């Protein structure tokens, strides 16, 4: 896949929150560039600032220091070409699955066309929720809810897809299936993906590159391209090359713990 130009650029990004009991630095001096159509996974211990990094990219927050730019323009507000899957499903409790998926159209443009509905139907099938179109979120299990959230983010076919642990609530089977489905989607209509995860195999299987963040304040302690070429499948993880790679990632995460 051709990587043309830069999609996302962090330069010297730091983020400090004011809390009730003082201030808390979540990110510190993060400088990373992500190329167009690149699939980058982010690993890091809980609370290190991964979600914060994603929020900054989405323009939902302004960095305390440094700057974030997307397609060469400084990010000062949310953009049209970015889709987000949140860590929590955050569905509309009063809308059924289909209405939740087409919600971006209704919300952004104020109307939902029959094409939108057809498109939604296709995505709902992709995420394995066919037959549940008319169910309310409260009638779904946690994993099913998260899949609706993913479908919603895909709905507008964004150039950049920001995913905050999208598969953590899914069962192993669905997780793998969704992972490969995501890869298929990504190859069919190329997108730049920033993918936060807690799973080393998942990162290794899906990404072009993996960023490892340190414990809070989050800094980039490693930026490693995945050694295997695409297309990948379940067996890809079995190669010694990949086993080493996964072990290296693991050691990076553990090393931090020891420090």
């Amino acid at each position, binding site marked *: 896949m051709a990587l043309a130009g830069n999609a996302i650029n962090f330069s010297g990004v730091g983020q400090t929150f004011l809390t009730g009991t003082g201030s808390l630095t979540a990110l510190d001096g993060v400088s990373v560039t992500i190329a167009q159509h690149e699939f980058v996974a982010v690993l890091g211990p809980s609370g290190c600032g991964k979600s914060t990094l994603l*929020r900054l990219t*989405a*323009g*939902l927050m302004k960095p305390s220091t440094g700057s974030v730019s997307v397609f060469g323009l400084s990010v000062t*507000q*949310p*953009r*049209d070409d*970015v889709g*987000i899957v*949140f860590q*929590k499903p*955050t569905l*509309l*409790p*009063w809308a059924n699955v289909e209405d939740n998926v087409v*919600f*971006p159209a*209704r*919300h*952004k443009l*104020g109307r939902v066309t029959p094409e939108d509905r057809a498109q939604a139907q296709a995505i709902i099938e992709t995420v394995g929720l066919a037959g549940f179109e008319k169910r*309310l979120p*409260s009638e779904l299990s946690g994993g099913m809810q998260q899949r609706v959230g993913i479908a919603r983010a895909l709905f507008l076919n964004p150039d950049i897809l920001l995913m905050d642990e999208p598969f953590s609530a899914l069962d192993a089977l669905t997780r793998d299936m969704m992972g490969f489905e995501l890869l298929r989607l990504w190859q069919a209509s190329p997108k730049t993906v920033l993918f936060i995860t807690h799973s080393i195999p998942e990162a290794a299987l899906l990404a072009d590159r993996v960023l490892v963040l340190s414990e809070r304040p989050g800094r980039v302690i490693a930026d490693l391209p995945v050694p295997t070429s695409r297309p990948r499948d379940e067996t890809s993880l079995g190669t010694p090359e990949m086993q080493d790679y996964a072990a290296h990632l693991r050691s990076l995460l553990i090393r931090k713990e020891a420090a």
Partner: protein
Amino acid sequence: MTVADTPDTSSAKTPKPATAAPSAKTVPLKERLLRTPVALPLMTFLLLLILWEAGTRIFAVPSYILPSPSRILFGFEAVPAGRWVEHIWATLRVALLGYLVSFVVSLPIAVGLAKSRLLSGALYPLLVVIQSVPVVAVAPIIIVVLGTGDAPRVVITFMISFFPLVVSMTTGLAATPPELIELSRSLRAPSFREITQIRLPYATPYIFSGMKISITLAVIGAVVSEFVAAEKGIGYFIQFSTSMFKLPQAWAGLVILVAMSLLLFQIVSQTQRIFFPWSLPKGQK
């Protein structure tokens, strides 16, 4: 460890498993009673009526203090049916108009209060002021400025009923989960759609809580407005009958007034139940 024989009696709070799914039609009587929104209150009322009748008879309560239900019944005959309808319509019209105005005015105010702290700081005290001004004190201005038609009465009703709506709406609009607001911002949707498609639906339980309070206040407001300026209406009728010492007739008016409040309250409740079932707490759907 004690293990009760009758299991799960307190499970009203958990989702109800269909313990006997195939024979789901044999709903126990208690359940069926609960599902009828009319039977139970009716029984309560009948009981109270009987107690009331018995009490006034046993203690020989003079009817100028508290007439017995049977005497109140005669009070209804004091006025021809057509005249009752006129009175009821006068009060109902003002109450509904005032309620409508309250709703229409409260909505943008609540949106403003929820979205802007600047506005909130400036506006909230003003609302409290309007809410806390006793109507008698400002009646002269209202009447001189608005004349003696429905307008002053609607304004008075509004003044009395709008506040709970504003407070509940504002609380509700501010209670939306921040993630959904982020979703809206990330879509760069126009701000009014954040309101109409996310904040307002989320505020629905709060809004209905305010609407339930306000609807009864609207009836009270209409009555109070009739004390101040009217020649018709149930409130006027009650006050007038009292001043003529026609107490059973005044109490008949009171009964109608209460029935009106109950009815309107039920309409608001049922509107929520039928059109916004997801906004009801679990176990009340």
